[in-house]
């Protein structure tokens, strides 16, 4: 077995999970760009989207439940913003953040109440969940679909932001909150729209993620949410290409580190495994620290100039 054959499964898994992180990271990044708010509830919206799918698929055929899940998740994101963030628009930023943490726990506890804390099996989506073989590595088709779907969605998003009226409004609000209001931009509409897009991407990400790892528990959004947030910071929070690149780097890194032992043994560099897989999460965060030491605003971060 060649080295490539050995590394390939890890790369595939890494690119796929990285793509899913990226979809979530965009949600963090856009909300931060516009509201300067870290939306801690984003990971839990992701989890709730998975749960909605579990229950929807029991009642409706898949071609109806998939759009329904996306629609409901978008509505959830919209409702969270209207109920928990909008009333605090003029409050100190810290209050909004506390409100976000509260929403996160509320969603988790509601999920705990509804599911009784039991693992819910995510429905298998035909074709997408099938096993396929790519260059000798066996994986699910969703692994291959994820990066392409993610790039297509990002391309769509970039077009939306650059070339539409609402996109222009979003850019304006991100530049200057108050001036944009003076220019006649309806702030609430723009913010709601941002949350809707973020939730739409989270819903798509959750479908891809849970098709690959089909167990939904109330804390299922925690770790992916944290990693996606790290990805957003890593790429430079507020930047969409940064979020995508950050997600992919983190996904690939953690996957490669999990397989590092096997690769090193194969290359003959070490004789017995060093149990490196144990450190897969630690490596991710060490990498983040290193990047932030050298580039405090992340890979694509904009320079902040304080306005007096």
């Amino acid at each position: 077995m060649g080295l490539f054959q050995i590394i390939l499964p890890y790369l595939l898994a890494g690119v796929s999970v990285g793509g899913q992180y990226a979809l979530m990271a965009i949600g963090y990044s856009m909300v931060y760009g516009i509201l300067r708010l870290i939306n801690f509830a984003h990971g839990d919206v992701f989890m709730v989207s998975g749960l909605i799918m579990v229950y929807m698929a029991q009642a409706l055929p898949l071609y109806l439940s998939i759009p329904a899940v996306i629609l409901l998740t978008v509505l959830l994101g919209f409702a969270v913003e209207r109920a928990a963030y909008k009333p605090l628009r003029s409050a100190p930023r810290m209050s909004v953040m506390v409100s976000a943490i509260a929403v996160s726990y509320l969603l988790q506890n509601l999920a705990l109440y509804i599911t009784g804390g039991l693992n819910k099996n995510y429905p298998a989506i035909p074709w997408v969940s099938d096993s396929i073989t790519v260059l000798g590595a066996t994986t699910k088709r969703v692994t291959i679909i994820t990066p392409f779907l993610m790039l297509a969605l990002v391309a769509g998003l970039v077009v939306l932001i650059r070339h539409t009226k609402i996109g222009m409004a979003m850019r304006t609000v991100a530049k200057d909150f108050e001036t944009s209001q003076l220019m006649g931009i309806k702030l609430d509409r723009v913010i709601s729209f941002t949350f809707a897009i973020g939730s739409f991407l989270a819903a798509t990400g959750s479908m891809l993620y849970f098709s690959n790892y089909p167990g939904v528990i109330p804390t299922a959004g925690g770790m992916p949410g944290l990693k996606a947030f790290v990805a957003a910071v890593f790429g430079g929070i507020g930047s969409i290409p940064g979020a995508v690149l950050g997600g992919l780097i983190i996904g690939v890194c953690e996957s490669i580190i999990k397989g590092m032992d096997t690769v090193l043994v194969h290359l003959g560099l070490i004789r017995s495994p060093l149990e490196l897989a144990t450190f897969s999460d630690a490596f991710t965060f060490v990498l983040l620290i290193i990047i932030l030491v050298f580039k405090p605003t992340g890979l694509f971060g904009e320079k902040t100039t304080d306005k007096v």
Partner: protein
Amino acid sequence: MMKKALALLLTGLLLATLAACGGSSAGSGGDRGGGGGSAAGNDVVRIGVFEPQSGDNGAGGKQEILGMQYANFETPTVVIGGKTYNVFLDIADNQSSNDKAPSAAQTLVSNGCSIVLGSYGSGVSIAASSTFGDAGIPVVGVTCTNPAVTQGNSHYFRICFLDPFQGPVLAHFAKEEYSAKKAYCLAKQGDDYSVGLCNYFMDAFGRDNCVYETFPDGTSDYSSYVANAKTAGADVFFSPVSTEAAALIIDQAATQGLTIPLLAGDTWDSNVILNAAEGKHVNICVTTFYQEGGNPTFDNGIKQWINGNSQAKANNGGDDKIAAVSAMGYDAYYVALEALKKAGSTDPAKVLEVLPGVTYNGVSGAIAFDNIGDAVRDVAYVKWCNPDTAEWEFIAQQGI
């Protein structure tokens, strides 16, 4: 004005949610004591149930409680010192979490339980042990198999076999049944049960022939670990982790076409595993305490009870398959009754005094304690998961 109204509305909504949760748990509390309701006027003896109902081990904990609830339904009263008492199962959720376990234990202590049963999962049992010990309340572990649970204390007992027994049993089974030369072992970081069991397995199998890895809490992506097992050329995949992780591992194993047997301990004996494996090309074997069909009276009784109680059915994962942990929970309840009878008092100190000498012939076999407080058991059942029918099939009784 609008803001305040909205804030009030939200607060109200939150309170309503809390009230709903509180109401429902009070309701199920009523159900639990319901068996005793018919013989009103009796005094109540509290048996604490220290089990996870949420978190990683929520599914298993619920099934273990089911066994106790069925036993309580069957025998709702006990005669202690010539006086009939209603037995009330006081259930506390330790949330499968070592840092939340002591407060759940404290609740049971404060409620004045005479004896406590539990927990599913060794980590939480170890974490809460001193809380029970300081209060002088005896605890009967049901399926916590890590030796550290009963070591160095006089109040923790258990009715199941131990990991130092279970690990070698599985290692021998792997060698004898599958002629395995190399094993891949996967445990969860900081999880006393899976790390401990992996170590006992590796000791018996030969550490040089094992690849050992651990995954962090919150992992969903097991594809790399399955790929590692494949490239390492392992003959068996040993992963005695929680059922939540197991479902994902099984899915990945099927996806990547891992044909080697997946071996695990008693935790995997659950319909969560059967549902995850249904219709997939996977080969799963587990060691367990009880095989469905071992005691037809018990089997039929509990099935009837589960089918007649929608809450119980939901807690059992939506069907009436009997988990070994339910049988163990059932036996644990009767061991507790024996201890109470023998003590002739509801005083925890008296119960603790007589507990080492209690014996009981349960559905999972004869139960007696040795001088550490562990059950005397020398045989485990090995079951194979038939993915076509999603049923467990009995393979062998295996000793060391």
